[in-house]
């Protein structure tokens, strides 16, 4: 699941900058071998005031190309109506030393795009600071302060996630400091770097400082993991325990008393004429996916009281906690219960820091009439079950407590595709085929066919085989961990015409989910970041094609056998008695993430497997050509 959970809270944002530059080198826009560099970015958090948390964010970046301006020339700061944001400093320093401060019209306060359609969220604003007078080699410097009122209730705590650079450019120096009352307990964790804070104490106060140096630029590479696992991330919290977090979530998530009549009526209508609890849950889930809009960008729900369930229902939108809570109300209407699930990849999570900000995804555990299932309102069910619920820590908040659930990573042996197909081609080049397929683990089609793909198995078969006629279909196994089926096709046999009466033919690759079969992993020795696929897996396909007498086999490719630490590929085509072609195709990939240094090893497995050259035969059919 690492890097694939799409739901990101934006609490992360505020950083600061030191204005260190004294001598500015001269560059021209034409000097394209330079790219933007963040000289310094600094985040300073002051927790010592009784009234406010004060967060100062500074940045000093030097930009060389116009394209880089998209990341740096118009920084945006999101806040809500209780908070105050002030620009303390903003200036462009050109290579010749000219200092240009943006005028008032270059600082605009607007409702953010992401919230424009949600009037209940129009209390949020975005300050956009536009730098002017920029030339190649200019420094763009700002210092912005945000004041967050402290709450006095017992469920109040401070938490923050600081990502070292949410852009492509390299960072010379990224630092974060926290000034806190001496007695305040601050827990913290750093991911992506082994750095420890420098802690200093002065009367009544304690200061923590983290400094990250020489963070490399990000580059566009295929199958790259998500940004938050490529850059250092710091999480901070003043919450005392996970019980406190659970209490906070419970107060927002669970609602006591009768479910509102309008919600109850809708829940009944959505599930009417449905008997099985699993189907009732699926219907509610589908209703939510189709009718409720999830607000994905939200500054911080720790500082925002969720709306009443009536209001969430009437508006049909909300942030994920609100919608999960509304889902709970639907389930309660039917006599069931739910828990709230908070998830994060195990490598980006620390149990030592009780903080909601650590979680990147939220879901529900539903129990109804003895049936229980985990559901997400953010992801298609197939992706959720096959790839997201692995290597994950889950914080499960119930109405009376909480527990952690550690979901292990999947092994390649658990995710497999195996198939056996017999194809008989007649002299008119029509074929009949029987295909047996077994799909296990993350490759099982259970959720895809039941929920995500209209038309189910038949559509699936028609799509992958590009045939007009599915003559028979028998489902042998159909559950979340295993799908097996047998299908009979007929149709025109397709080959590719070459010159001189030659044709080429290749047995069709079965669809799989482990990675995109159109992927381009270029033949290059330079790779900067790890390669990540959806899941490890084992693919095995045997296809036997019996040809009519009119067709002659001209050429078979050589057998390919490749094996390394990460897996193996075996590709072969055998000519059995001159009339039957036996295609064997096998790929084994043992893990889902590969070090950049081992790029060529994983590349060779994937690209060899996908290269049609090793699975294509040359045929001659004088009669039909």
């Amino acid at each position, binding site marked *: 699941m690492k890097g694939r959970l799409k739901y990101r809270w934006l609490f992360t944002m505020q950083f600061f900058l030191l204005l260190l530059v004294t001598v500015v080198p001269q560059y021209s826009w034409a000097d394209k071998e330079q790219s933007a560099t963040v000289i310094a970015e600094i985040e300073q958090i002051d927790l010592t005031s009784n009234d406010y948390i004060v967060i100062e964010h500074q940045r000093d970046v030097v930009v060389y190309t116009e394209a880089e301006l998209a990341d740096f020339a118009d920084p945006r700061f999101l806040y809500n109506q209780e908070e105050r944001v002030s620009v303390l400093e903003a200036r462009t320093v050109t290579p010749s030393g000219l200092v240009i401060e943006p005028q008032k019209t270059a600082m605009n306060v607007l409702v953010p795009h992401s919230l424009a359609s949600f*009037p209940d969220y129009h209390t949020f604003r975005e300050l956009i600071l536009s730098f002017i007078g920029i030339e190649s080699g200019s420094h763009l410097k700002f210092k912005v302060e945000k004041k967050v009122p402290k709450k006095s209730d017992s469920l109040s705590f401070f938490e923050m996630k600081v990502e070292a650079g949410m852009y492509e450019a390299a960072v010379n120096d990224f630092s974060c400091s926290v000034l806190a009352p001496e007695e305040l307990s601050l827990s913290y964790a750093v991911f992506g770097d082994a750095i420890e804070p420098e802690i200093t104490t002065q009367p009544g106060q304690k200061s923590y400082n983290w400094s990250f140096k020489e963070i490399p630029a990000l580059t566009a590479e295929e199958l790259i993991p998500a940004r938050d696992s490529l850059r250092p991330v710091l999480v901070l919290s003043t919450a005392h325990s996970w019980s406190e977090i659970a209490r906070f979530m419970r107060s927002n998530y669970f609602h006591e008393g009768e479910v509102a009549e309008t919600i109850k009526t809708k829940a009944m209508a959505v599930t009417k004429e449905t008997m099985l609890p699993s189907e009732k849950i699926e219907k509610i889930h589908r209703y939510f996916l189709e009718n409720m809009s999830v607000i994905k960008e939200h500054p911080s729900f720790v500082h925002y009281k969720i709306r009443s369930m009536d209001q969430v229902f009437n508006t049909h939108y909300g942030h994920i906690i609100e919608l999960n809570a509304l889902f709970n109300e639907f389930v309660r209407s039917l006599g069931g219960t739910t828990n709230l699930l908070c998830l994060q990849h195990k490598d980006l999570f620390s149990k030592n820091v009780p903080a909601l900000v650590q979680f990147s995804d939220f879901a529900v555990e539903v129990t109804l009439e003895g049936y229980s299932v985990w559901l997400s309102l953010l992801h298609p069910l197939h992706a959720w079950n096959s790839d997201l619920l692995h290597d994950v820590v889950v914080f499960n908040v119930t109405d009376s407590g909480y527990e952690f659930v550690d979901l292990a990573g999947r092994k390649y042996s658990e995710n497999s595709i195996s198939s056996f197909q017999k194809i008989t081609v007649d002299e008119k080049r029509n074929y009949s085929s029987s295909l047996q397929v077994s799909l296990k683990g993350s490759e099982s089609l259970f959720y895809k066919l039941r929920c995500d793909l209209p038309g189910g198995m038949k559509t699936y078969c028609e799509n992958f085989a590009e045939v007009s006629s599915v003559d028979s279909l028998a489902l042998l196994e159909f559950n979340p961990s295993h799908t097996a089926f047998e299908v009979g096709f007929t149709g025109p046999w397709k080959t590719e015409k070459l010159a001189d009466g030659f044709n080429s033919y290749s047995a069709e690759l079965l669809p799989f989910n482990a990675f995109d079969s159109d992927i381009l992993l270029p033949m290059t020795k330079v790779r900067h970041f790890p390669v990540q696929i959806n899941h490890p897996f084992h693919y095995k396909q045997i296809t036997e094609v019996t040809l009519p007498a009119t067709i002659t086999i001209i050429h078979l490719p050589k057998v390919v056998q490749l094996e390394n630490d990460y897996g193996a590929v075996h590709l072969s085509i055998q000519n059995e008695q001159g009339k039957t072609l036996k295609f064997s195709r096998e790929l084994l990939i043992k893990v889902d993430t590969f070090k950049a240094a081992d790029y060529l090893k994983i590349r060779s497995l994937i690209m060899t497997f996908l290269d049609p050259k090793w699975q294509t035969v040359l045929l001659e059919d004088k009669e039909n050509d």
Partner: protein
Amino acid sequence: MSRYFVATKTNSLSPLICVFFLFVLFLSGPSMIGAQTSKTPTLTDEQIWSIINKNVKKKLFVDSPTVTLLHKDVVTFKENGASIKNSQFLIAIQADEGARKYRTLRFDYNIKTSYVAIKEIKIYNSEKNSIRMVPHEGIEAVPAPDDGLIFWNFSMKVVPLGILESGDVLYYEIERRGMNIAYLSADGDAAHREFLPPMPGHYFEVVYFESDQPIIDRQYHLYGPRSKLIQYEIENGTIDSSILFEDQMLHYCFQKRDIPAYVSEYSSISFDQAALKVVLATNPDWEGKSRWAYELNEPQFVISAEMQQKVDELLTGTTTDDEKMAILLHWVADNIRYLGLDMGEGEGFTVHRTDEIFAERAGVCKDKAACLISMLRAAGIPAYFVLTLALEKAVDIPADQFNHGVVAVPREDGTFIYLDPTWAPQDRALFNKREQEQSILIASPEGEDLGNIPYSPAEENYWHISGKSSLEISGDVHLTMDVEADNFAGGKMRQSLAARSPLNKPLYFHKIVNPLSAEAIIEKSSFQNPLDYSSPLNLSLTIFLPDYAIVLDDRILLVPPLSRHPFSRAWESDYLYVVDPDERTKPLELDCTRKMHFTETMKIPRGYTLTERDEIRMSSETATLTYVIEQKGRNLNVLLDFSIHRRIVSPEEYPQFRKMVQQIKELRDRHIVLMKRSKGEL
């Protein structure tokens, strides 16, 4: 919904260049102007029930999730051009999908230049025989999100409608005064203020009669003083129209019934161009508008000392005006970033002061154009501001239909050279060739008629890709590929090469050669600085293709590498991705006219012969395709040339164009056979 703000972007294939201009848009509306009588009484419940019931009986468009039963605009304008527009909508929700579409109503406007009053919102349901009033009185305007990087301080009112269901009918009525971009307001509170148009005394509008959902009854009524005659033109179909004398006013009435939903086709020309519409204006001719634009903007062209110094510095050593124009154009293109800050009065139809644009190094298209005009003038080259409609043609009615600002430099022979600094970054042409044949209006003291940017033939926008390759007996191929590209073609490559991080360039080269083979190894690459505009762009790649050909005992099969069409991404070769449907009802819009010219000379192993010479020639008004492969000695010579002569392909020409593209696709996989000569054979 009425359209009240025009902002045109380049299409998504060109994300690096974003056009936007100014020219306003429009909304005005009626009900009361001064002492005039309202022309549009709010519909009564009885009238609305009657419309709903009539539609139920008609059973038209029952499969559409939503149907507009009535969209009626009534506009009244005065001698001074001030106007009020009253709009009534009645929309039937026929499926859940339709209910989702209408969760809220949003109205954007600029509070300094216009006013929107929500008169009434109700939900009718005939099954329940119910009417629900939607509260809207307390809805406050909030600052609307920016439009890209344009910060012209728009506000919006967003009204939640509550839960709608299939069977509901939404009725709403709004009143708009003024324009969204025009700072010429008079005194008084917003609800009663007259907002004068940018060109006082005149009224214009572009009124669309289609939308993304079917419309049962679309009406547009315009009331104006008899002294202000309206000229209009109906485009893309027919609309019933009439002109009536009413009191002291003329009443222009346009109506159409039972209009199906507008269906866009992949890569077709824009809705604005293709939809049924009326374009109307009181302005008598383009010349007047041209003079107005000149007089309005001329005071803004201010040459500061810093600007003069920069011009002198940039032009040191130059001798010809052509040289000077190119240098100044590219300086503005690359150094004035696209950013729309609000200048206050006049924003949207007037350029910013050019000394300020120069100092801020920021502006939208009109401001970039204005800055270039001042810099050209500082270099002694006369230049004019030009209004234009990016990629499109305006209807020949002198209404503001423009969305982009560029520059014209007069020649001695009375013609003009055009320059567009907004679309020029990473493009060598003075005027981006994609913008060929679009409408323009030069703002000059004499006044100009509506004109067009000249056509750009395919030969101006070329990729010349020449390959020298050698085929080994093992099946390996060594290839050197030299590329020269200019104008549109060069711009595409320059933009890729000038991408943010230099680390990304290798991936770009791999994307170019990937169609040849996933196993292609790029052994060497060299390319020209993409920001050197002194010559067409050059790129050279040395490529190794291991195991490329199929080697049999007596023959070798292969596709000549360049026949596989490197540069085949939609970024460069959009035509490869737009010919799926057999036919089209709307014109196909391509990026640009262009010439893709591949030549390859392949040295083949001694003793092998090409079994068959091949030649394909296809031609139409839109495009020409030539493919020839032949053997000369030990060399195979391959020529593949595809020239696109028209940027817009009509539905009639489309099938032939499609055939050519399919032929190119087929060539990408067409193997040739090299036969081994038997002993003794010559």
